């Protein structure tokens, strides 16, 4: 889709509705430059009161930038924001909040303050308010947090410290904080990217409830199924411009093409059998009280590990990759005993983990891209201890090209990249070397549909040389990339099958089976369907 005429037309058509009185919030020809990068190039569209609008676009299209402008974090280079008919300029997040715009950002940890309890976090704006109460004891905070909690019908552990909560609960806190201010518009930037299926389901219920209360929602996601399900209307951003608008019922094929700017062909992956067994894991325990589990991984296959959050997947992977020591059980790698005492030892043995929490576990905030590419391969890029900078940069340039990382070059700081592009780089850097076993925990978080199929193709190709163990709680993703799938529930393996025998619905059904049901029989384990 290279027709700029088409895009211009859309821009013109959108103009009248921008100034329409009925709209709650409108963007009028917003542009935003970061140095030489033009993140937004004249974006105009509006959200009516009570409407749910989906905002879509590939990684780096400018979605987060646009909503950060609406949230008062960035100021537009040019253009206007109109809220209920009045032009508004937001210099500070508080300005946006006071105008009734609440934002839950992509990086959920931006929305909570570590080291404080949930109750304190809920009351944060009260605490920060200039001219607010001077004396605000623990007791008072607790009491008021209770009131908020009741009004929003939540059951958060008020006395817990935020960093002790799993990401999904932290997000609930961040959302609750925003809702407590009775916003007219709630912006959710990729809210499900840190949630499991079941938790996402809870979020959707909550969204339905917000809609009922007449709150307009601007919803950003890479998952078309969510947009289809939740939104009345969807706009697609590409390269900082609105390229198309869609109304329910959504034509997801057309949306996908519009996001990528090219026709999308469905990729049907053949299920492969795999070759020799490379790694055998027996008698490992995922959760403290669960019974031991065993499985193996073969070269020539991608083994998908799925299950709800809390099923014990991450705990299992961490034992395999030396992030924590396995207390019981036996691991074999390429025919030899394997018992890594730490991460470095696991890597020396050839096992690497691409961890789940990108910002926390993979990113050095002030460093540039090429340093991120070589940091885990320091000995490969050095000679007698001296770094070979030229080779490092060339390597980064390769990763950037192969994984289509949108950036201006290896010298960019990682913080300047959009979330999805960071992820492409951080996954891509591992595939340059032949490890013994590559393990990935939720590698597709926040990645657009184009990049997802790019990465899953690369992983499948890579698995011809090195077995790949991939963990994801999104059924669609596992089925797209894996040849064989293991489903975990509360620390135990409840089902194993080749992916061509499964589909997203079946998977979701097995994943969600409650523990009160009888444990599966041996026959059921093998012969689903």
């Amino acid at each position: 889709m290279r027709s700029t005429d088409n895009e211009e037309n859309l821009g013109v058509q959108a103009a009248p509705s921008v100034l329409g009185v009925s709209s709650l919030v409108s963007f009028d020809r917003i542009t935003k430059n970061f140095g030489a990068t033009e993140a937004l190039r004249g974006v105009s569209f509006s959200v009516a009161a009570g409407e749910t609008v989906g905002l879509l676009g590939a990684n780096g299209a400018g979605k987060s930038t646009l909503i950060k402008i609406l949230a008062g974090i960035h100021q537009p280079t040019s253009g206007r924001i109109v809220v209920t008919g009045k032009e508004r300029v937001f210099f500070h997040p508080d300005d946006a909040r006071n105008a009734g715009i609440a934002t839950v950002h992509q990086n959920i940890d931006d929305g909570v303050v570590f080291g404080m309890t949930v109750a304190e976090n809920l009351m944060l704006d009260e605490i920060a308010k200039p001219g607010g109460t001077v004396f605000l004891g623990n007791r008072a905070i607790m009491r008021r947090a209770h009131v908020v909690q009741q009004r929003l019908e939540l059951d958060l552990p008020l006395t817990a410290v935020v960093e002790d909560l799993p990401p999904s609960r932290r997000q609930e806190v961040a959302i609750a904080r925003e809702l407590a201010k009775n916003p007219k518009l709630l912006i959710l930037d990729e809210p499900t990217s840190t949630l499991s299926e079941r938790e996402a389901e809870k979020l959707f219920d909550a969204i339905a409830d917000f809609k009922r209360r007449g709150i307009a929602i601007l919803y950003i996601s890479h998952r078309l199924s969510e947009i289809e399900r939740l939104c009345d209307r969807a706009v697609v951003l590409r390269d900082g411009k609105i390229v198309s608008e869609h109304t329910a019922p959504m034509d997801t094929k057309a949306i996908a093409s519009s996001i990528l700017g090219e026709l999308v062909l469905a990729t049907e992956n053949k299920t492969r059998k795999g070759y020799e067994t490379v790694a055998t894991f027996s008698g490992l325990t995922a959760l403290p009280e669960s019974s031991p589990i065993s499985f193996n991984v073969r070269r020539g296959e991608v083994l998908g590990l799925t299950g709800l959050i809390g099923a014990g997947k991450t705990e299992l992977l961490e034992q395999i990759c030396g992030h924590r020591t396995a207390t019981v059980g036996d691991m074999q790698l390429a025919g030899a005993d394997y018992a890594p005492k730490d991460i470095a030892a696991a890597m020396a043995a050839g096992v690497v983990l691409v961890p789940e929490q990108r910002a926390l576990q993979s990113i050095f905030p002030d460093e540039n891209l090429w340093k991120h590419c070589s940091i885990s391969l320091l000995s490969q890029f050095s000679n007698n201890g001296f770094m070979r900078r030229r080779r490092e940069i060339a390597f980064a340039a390769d990763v950037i090209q192969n994984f289509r990382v949108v950036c201006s070059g290896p010298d960019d700081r990682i913080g300047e990249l959009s979330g999805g592009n960071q992820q492409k780089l951080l996954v891509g850097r591992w595939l340059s070397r032949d490890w013994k076993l590559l393990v990935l925990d939720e590698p597709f978080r926040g990645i657009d549909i184009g990049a997802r199929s790019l990465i899953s193709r690369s992983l499948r190709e890579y698995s011809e040389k090195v077995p790949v163990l991939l963990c994801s709680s999104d059924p669609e993703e596992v089925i797209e990339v894996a040849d064989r799938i293991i489903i975990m529930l509360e620390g135990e393996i409840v089902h194993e099958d080749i992916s061509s025998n499964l589909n997203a619905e079946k998977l979701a059904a097995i994943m969600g089976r409650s523990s009160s049901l009888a444990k599966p029989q041996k026959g059921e384990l093998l012969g689903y369907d």
Partner: protein
Amino acid sequence: MIEKTDQPLSKETTNRLNSVGIIKHFVYRYGLLAVLVGMIVYFSIAQPFFGTFINSMFILQAASVVAVVGLGCTVSMTVGGFDLSVGAAMSLSIMAAAGAMVIGNFGGFSAILIGMLAGVAVGLLNSFLIVYARIPDLVATLSSLFLINGLTLMGVGGQSVAKGMTFNGERTTGEFAPIFKWLGSGSVISIPASVVVAGSVFILVHVLLNYTRWGRAFYAVGGNPIAAAAAGIRVARYRIIAYLISGGLASVAGLMLAARSNRGDVNVGDPFLLQAVSAALVGYAVLGANKPNAFGTLVGAIFVAVLINGLTMFNFPYYAQSFVQGCLLVVALLMSYTLAQSRG
């Protein structure tokens, strides 16, 4: 394919962006160096003696001790740490080396070895407190500051160590070895020995931090220890090494100081903590590094020495030196923090 850009920027926008951007960029990267050069040029014109070789060597000599301690601090800062005990480590190694020679009649090289071991021991204590006992860096090194200072005082009974002192009621017979005389007042092709030592330390630390994989690991540990661990870097090991280097370099600085005065005075290292830390912090603003770096620390140390030397020539009152140094630090911090954020 995802298209990146399909329209080039208009000429006008590019120009406007560039001229503002270039000025900001220049100030951010070269501002401090430009001020330093400007100052040197000004002082040299106004006071011809300032620009002579002899005076520049005075300046470098004045900067050398601060530079060496500061380079140690820089290393501990790269791993995200902070070493408050460098001054105490200096004092300890001064007393240990001076005591070894004066009281124990040891030779020069043994005294140097003893002094350096003392500094490394402080590093060991720090890494034990920080890495194994998991005490936060600031408070851990603060407590070793007091511990080590106290220990030093107790060791020599609160008195200075100099030739002919009485210790435990007896007159001592030892004296400072020739190597210390050389370190204090000798020279290599008319460059003072302490400048040569500081220069070598700078080159070693600079190469370590910028060109080796250990340096890369140091910065990674400081940038995000969790991510560094996930990348297979043994975080604890690097933090220990960083504190050992910090303590070791403090002892080198201590020996340089002892050689200069040929005696060991109690707590002479104390003022160097703040001097060194401020040199390292000024260094953040050099070449827009915005992080601890060896070259910046060196420039930071020289900057202060130039400033004080020049101002002294203009009969600037000595009691206002702190104030001037404070101004320098604020300007440097404004450049590295405030300007860095408003860029782009």
